């Protein structure tokens, strides 16, 4: 991990220190037709997630006897990027749909809902690097918001290395400058890794250091996610409490 001194010396295009993540916004319950939902922004990257289910899965031959099928769809809105994105799935979005599902499933008690489906839709409203991690952060809050039993929330952030410095939460042109782009998702309680991808050229030691740094950076995201859920549910809980009392 970079020392405090080290990181002090280096500031980034947007004024952040290397270990800083961009300003975060998290809100739960933003969509009104879904069973659970959340909006997650990291700087100018914004993901919105909706969760439906658990509900019966049709057609029946897709049902899994001992657990729920977790289905995900990641997609970019056409206006989210500098160059308009053509509507419809791309190879990139299909791969992300898969890795995001595999990042979320370890945290969900899918075994509680045999034969059911839990559907998670993630739309990227604004894209400025880190869309898959934003999608995971939003989806994890949306799953909790839907009342689906979970082992933990999932927190995700991408880390890179610029001019020899580990750099957390790449944004804008940093993605072009980095020697590697390493998105990581973890379950903070245990520190277990649920998403790990990498593009670049670094040593195996660097990989381990970067994962540790990502784990650390996830701390703040985790707090914000929990706060969003408290903001959403505490007033209701209180109201119910009072009604009872």
């Amino acid at each position, binding site marked *: 991990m970079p020392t405090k001194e080290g990181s002090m010396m280096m500031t980034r295009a947007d004024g952040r220190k290397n270990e800083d993540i961009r300003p975060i916004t998290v809100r739960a319950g933003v*969509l*009104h*037709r*879904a069973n659970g*939902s959340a909006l997650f922004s990291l700087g*100018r990257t914004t993901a*919105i*997630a*909706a969760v*439906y289910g658990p509900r019966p899965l049709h057609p029946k031959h897709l049902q899994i006897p001992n657990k729920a099928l977790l289905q995900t*769809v990641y*997609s970019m*809105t*056409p*206006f*989210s*990027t*500098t*160059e*308009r994105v053509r*509507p*419809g799935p791309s190879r990139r979005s299909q791969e992300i749909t898969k890795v995001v599902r595999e990042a979320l499933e370890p945290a969900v008690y899918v075994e509680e809902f045999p034969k059911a489906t839990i*559907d998670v*839709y993630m*739309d990227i*409203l*604004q*894209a*400025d690097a880190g869309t898959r991690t934003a999608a995971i952060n939003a989806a994890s809050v949306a799953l909790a918001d839907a009342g689906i039993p979970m082992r933990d929330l999932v927190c995700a952030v991408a880390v890179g290395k610029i001019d020899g410095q580990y750099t957390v939460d790449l944004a804008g042109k940093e993605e072009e400058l980095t020697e590697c782009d390493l998105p990581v998702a973890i379950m903070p309680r245990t520190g277990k890794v649920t998403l790990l991808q990498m593009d670049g050229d670094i040593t195996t030691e660097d990989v381990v250091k970067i994962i540790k740094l990502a784990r650390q950076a996830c701390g703040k995201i985790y707090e914000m996610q929990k706060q969003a859920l408290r903001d959403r549910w505490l007033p209701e809980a209180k109201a119910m409490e009072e009604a009872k009392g």
Partner: protein
Amino acid sequence: MILQDNFIHNLAAKGLRMDKRKLDEFRPIVVETGVIAKAEGSARVKIGNTEVIVGVKLDVGTPFPDKPSEGVLITNAEFSPIASPLFEKGPPREEAIELARVVDRGIRESKAIETAKLCIAEKEKVWMVFVDIHILNHFGNLIDASAMAAIAALLTAKMPEYDGEKVNYEKHSGKLPVKCKPVAVTMAKIGERIVVDASLEEEQVMAARLTATTKDDGNVCALQKGGTSSLTLEDIESMLALSKEKGKEIRKLL
């Protein structure tokens, strides 16, 4: 379902609605612009719980052969599954296509965008204006919300710079030339009564609907009847009058 059908019908017959609105009353409307950083123009519109985002993107492309010196407008709507449990991933369905085309016609026929100013080199290069509609919450009346968000987004859209070879989205040279504010008002016929801004529940029981898009001068620039029942001429006359009146009110919010 049938119980609710009857309930809405009975209410309407008495001039009442489930959410206590008057028949000719919209739910609260909120228009917010500049909500998407990378779009040249954007707006979020809420009508009650219905919520729509429109992003406007610009790019350089080739004009249509029959209009060699005019910019091109392309309107698209995605019914993302986040907005309703009934929307499914996949290619846009009939409803999404109709929505996009009705919004598109309102903009196109009102000549809101001065497409002649979007010509860069005749027959070769013109600006393409992409209007992308994204539904966030579907509680009825998507057409009016989308049309409002579309014109609001266009009104705030900035022109990126173009050096003859590529578009520089980080610099801007003025605003997209938009000269008027078409407003779509959709009216539903429930029993024998006409209501504006139908809620989702009302849409499910309505016999027919008419969307009338009016211009600043009160002229109509687009009409679209929908629904599985018919309208009398008297219905249509009332609806046209109503669309003009409501259009004027909504135009003030843009």
